[in-house]
């Protein structure tokens, strides 16, 4: 704007963007390079003395051999959780955008508000809800849906449920943003032209909400794939995800090169999947 232009001179834009760009360059982009060089370094070293870059590509092969089941499990759990989030999130975002009337703002605030109770504390409370002698397990056992010694805690179900719960708001907000932009008149016009509710959804609402669907699923899938908190608190050693392994390699094993290689691999897989997904959904302009 002209006012700022006058104050900062001709290069106003660069003065304004400068601090943020610099911070992100030094503490986001540059560390990625550091991660890359660490991943190609000799594992014989320590976090205090540092590691020497020897272009050791074997790190990647070793990591892939040792941890690919964890990688696959992460993608699977995150994928299922993302689908569940999409279904639940769509219902709520649709209700807020079209049906909530004057309660719109209140409902929107309610979507974000759980965020403010610590994420770890909330995840711990699922431990209580899904506990072996808890209400839900007992009910399911009485109904013979769950066997007598069947349990929910420490199963893939608990981990996927935790992921779904924790990342649901990330699906809802982008969905709501694109649903809210849809002109209700379009729906009315389609109804006047004898479109059934189902047709109206598949031909109008769904296609127009696609940017929100893509944005929401990405914002859910990406963090869910790297998450290890749900797998640690609600799962068992058999449900560990790739995040558990990266964290263990860094903090307990102190094997930075292998940890970095696994981390780079995770990022590469995610970037690859995101690109394919965005292409296929035809929403490249989002990036």
């Amino acid at each position, binding site marked *: 704007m002209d006012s700022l232009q006058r104050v900062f001179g001709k290069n106003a*834009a660069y003065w304004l963007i400068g601090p943020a760009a610099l911070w992100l360059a030094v503490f986001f982009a540059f560390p990625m390079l550091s991660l890359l060089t660490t991943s190609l370094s000799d594992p014989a070293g320590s976090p205090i003395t540092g590691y020497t870059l020897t272009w050791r590509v074997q790190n990647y092969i070793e990591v892939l051999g040792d941890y690919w089941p964890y990688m696959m499990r992460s993608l699977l759990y995150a994928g299922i959780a993302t689908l569940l989030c999409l279904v639940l999130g769509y219902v709520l975002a649709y209700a807020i955008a079209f049906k909530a009337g004057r309660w719109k703002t209140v409902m929107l605030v309610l979507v974000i508000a759980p965020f403010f*109770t610590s994420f770890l504390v909330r995840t711990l409370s699922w431990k*209580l809800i899904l506990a072996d002698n808890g209400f839900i397990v007992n009910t399911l056992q009485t109904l013979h849906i769950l066997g007598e010694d069947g349990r929910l805690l420490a199963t893939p179900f608990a981990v996927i449920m935790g992921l779904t719960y924790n990342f649901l708001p990330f699906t809802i907000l982008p969905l709501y943003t694109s649903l809210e932009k849809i002109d209700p008149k379009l729906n009315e016009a389609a109804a006047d032209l004898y479109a059934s509710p189902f047709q109206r959804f598949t031909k109008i609402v769904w296609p127009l909400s696609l940017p929100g669907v893509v944005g929401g699923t990405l914002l859910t899938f990406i963090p869910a794939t790297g998450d290890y908190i749900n797998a640690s608190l609600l799962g068992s050693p058999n449900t560990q995800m790739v995040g558990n392994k990266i964290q263990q390699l860094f903090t307990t094993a102190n094997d930075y090169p292998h940890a970095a290689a696994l981390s780079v691999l995770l990022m590469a897989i995610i970037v690859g999947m995101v690109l394919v997904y965005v292409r296929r959904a035809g929403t490249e302009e989002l990036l």
Partner: protein
Amino acid sequence: MITRLGRWIGKHLMLTLGILVLVYMYIPNMIVALMSFNDSSQSRNLYQFQSFTWDNWLNPCEPQGMCESLRVSISIGLLATLVATAIGTLAAFALVRHRFEGRSTANLMIFLPMATPEIVMGSSLLALFVAAGFGGQLGFWTILIAHIMFCISFVVVTVRSRLAGLDSNLEKAAMDLYANEWQTFWRITFPLVFPGILSAALLAFSLSFDDFIITNLNSGTTVTFPMFVWGAAQRGVPMQVNVIGTLMFILALAIVIGGEVAARRRAKGKAAAL
């Protein structure tokens, strides 16, 4: 008649389903609030409701190290919010109000941290700190650097959407009425963008306060509140953790609702003045 009935049911069906999803999102919060009144003195390892007590609320700082960790989290949260909100807001102004060379690169740079798993960001920062020889000095400052980093993007996105929806005619009108640049900025632009800056700050604080994955990798021996909870989860969670969780929730809700009420009152006042 039948279609009207169908439509009526359809309308309320979606609303009912939506409310059910909301209820699902609140089950853990209700459990947290309930557990904050749990008397766990008989058995600390059993994480289930035993009997009612006010003790946890009366002695919230009883568990060793918890309130220290809370203080650390709040100081990091406030500092990170201050810095991230300031430089993020400036960046948002640059991106909305200026066309400059490198703008799309800047946009990408802002977007990428939001599309990177925390474990990757945390580990790359750790790799940098170690490579730069700071491996032995991880702590308060490295956590703060990391938090500012991941908060910036969310601040930019929040302020940018508020700024993009702003009618620039208001500023032009002010300039036409002989307001100078500073007057226009402080009397027109800033008040209009302020709600966006406020929600960005709130978001930044909650992201910082809640972060575990990145913090855990870059903290050295410093313990933040989420790290305290994580450590406690391995041994037996003190019920006071639930007091803090509930308190934070009430506080945040009060801020949001207070802001909304104030905005409505101001809007009403303006409508009356017209």
